[in-house]
């Protein structure tokens, strides 16, 4: 099945890895866990560059938050005490639902982002967390916001480049802050039909100080819902305003119909998941709606 692959490289460092891909003029592919690559079986791939042994699987504090190496696995993320604590664990929860144990043991954060499925479970919380990605090619390194990184289904602004790490700025925390990740799938570890990640900061009088709403599997790329966010800021969080924001989300998403769900169902469920997430965030602040 993979007789088109003529070489398997194990570079010793990042420079060698990016050089191999650069010199391959489009015929090479970076390989981390391989769970997507082995299934896609793209026959244009002539050689593989294994990046799983470059020491890029770290999870460590940075000056202003956390940095996660691109080859940290889903299993490592879901078990990491730091990631479980970060933003009430929304990224750890997403990683824990990213397929079966066997897949989570090898699938990597970098692979999930670079594969750029509109339904990538880790992309949604990372968008809500205003994550920043750093990648490299033969010319050097670049850093960019994750928002704007995805260009379409399975497309990124870093095609042919090596994703090195993802930085998560220290998110707002405290008694009046809530975070929630919601996923709807046929089973809980199946690919998302819709997923949502929400962060919410409330004033003492329950007015919305700030809010971040991200959704997956409902547009060509994982997305934020800026209109719904703008609608909520400054307003007192009440059932009517939550309904209004959810209706705005339903207008902002651009879902498709496929074998798993219709566009109409995904649109309606986007509103439902955002409502649930907002309520859960509020509950975490001790405000029961």
């Amino acid at each position: 099945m993979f007789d088109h692959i003529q070489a398997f490289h194990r570079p010793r460092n990042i420079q060698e890895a990016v050089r191999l891909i650069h010199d391959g003029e489009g015929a090479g592919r970076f390989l981390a866990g391989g769970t997507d690559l082995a299934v896609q079986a793209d026959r244009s791939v002539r050689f593989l560059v294994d990046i799983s042994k470059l020491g890029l699987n770290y999870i460590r504090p940075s000056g202003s938050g956390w940095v996660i190496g691109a080859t940290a696995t889903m299993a490592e993320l879901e078990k990491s005490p730091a990631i479980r604590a970060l933003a009430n664990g929304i990224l750890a929860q997403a990683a824990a639902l990213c397929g079966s144990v066997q897949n989570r043991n090898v699938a990597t954060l970098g692979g999930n982002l670079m594969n750029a499925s509109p339904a990538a479970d880790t992309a949604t919380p990372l968008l809500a967390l205003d994550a920043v990605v750093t990648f490299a090619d033969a010319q050097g390194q670049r850093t960019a916001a994750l928002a704007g990184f995805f260009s379409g289904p399975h497309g990124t602004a870093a095609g042919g480049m090596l994703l090195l790490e993802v930085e998560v700025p220290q998110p707002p925390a405290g008694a009046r802050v809530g975070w929630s990740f919601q996923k709807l799938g046929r089973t809980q570890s199946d690919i998302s039909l819709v997923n949502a990640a929400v962060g919410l900061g409330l004033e003492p009088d329950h007015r919305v100080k700030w809010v971040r709403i991200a959704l997956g599997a409902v547009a060509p790329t994982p997305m934020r819902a800026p209109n719904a966010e703008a609608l909520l800021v400054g307003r007192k969080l009440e059932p009517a305003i939550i309904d209004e924001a959810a209706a705005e989300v339903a207008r902002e998403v651009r879902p498709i119909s496929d074998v798993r769900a219709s566009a109409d169902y995904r649109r309606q469920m986007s509103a439902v998941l955002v409502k649930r997430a907002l309520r859960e965030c509020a509950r975490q602040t001790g405000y029961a709606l």
Partner: protein
Amino acid sequence: MNTIEIGVKINGESKRWRIAPGDLLLDVLRREGYYGVKRGCESGECGACTVLLDGKAINSCVMFAAQADGCELLTIEGLAQGDTLDPIQDAFLECGAVQCGYCTPGMILNAKAFLAQQPDPSEDEVRDMLAGNLCRCTGYLKPVEAVLAAAEACRQKAKDR
């Protein structure tokens, strides 16, 4: 066709295998006679091809053999100690958790890695783990019972020691 050589330690034995760069681990294992590794969906969904790689359960159908270079592998053939079955194998027999048997090696190996990390699991945790192994005969009730029984047996054995 270019070939490369990889070295693995499989079921306690060191081996060197000559492989094609694009060979999948599942294909190499079966070619080398480890028929307990089953070919199922070939897309990382069903878990029939589960083996342990450095103690972690993985689907060998979505891993290139070259990725296993330098690693330790365990297949179902290497689980029993001589004639003594692993407590998980015993529990699958005792509980009648085997029907056609095709999913069984994968379930047992996944459970092996799981119980090493979580010796006292809840039923929910066992079900979550076994979600990576599809059974098309009958269902999951007896495998879940078997994993819980094996956990109990292992804890008892550790206490008696």
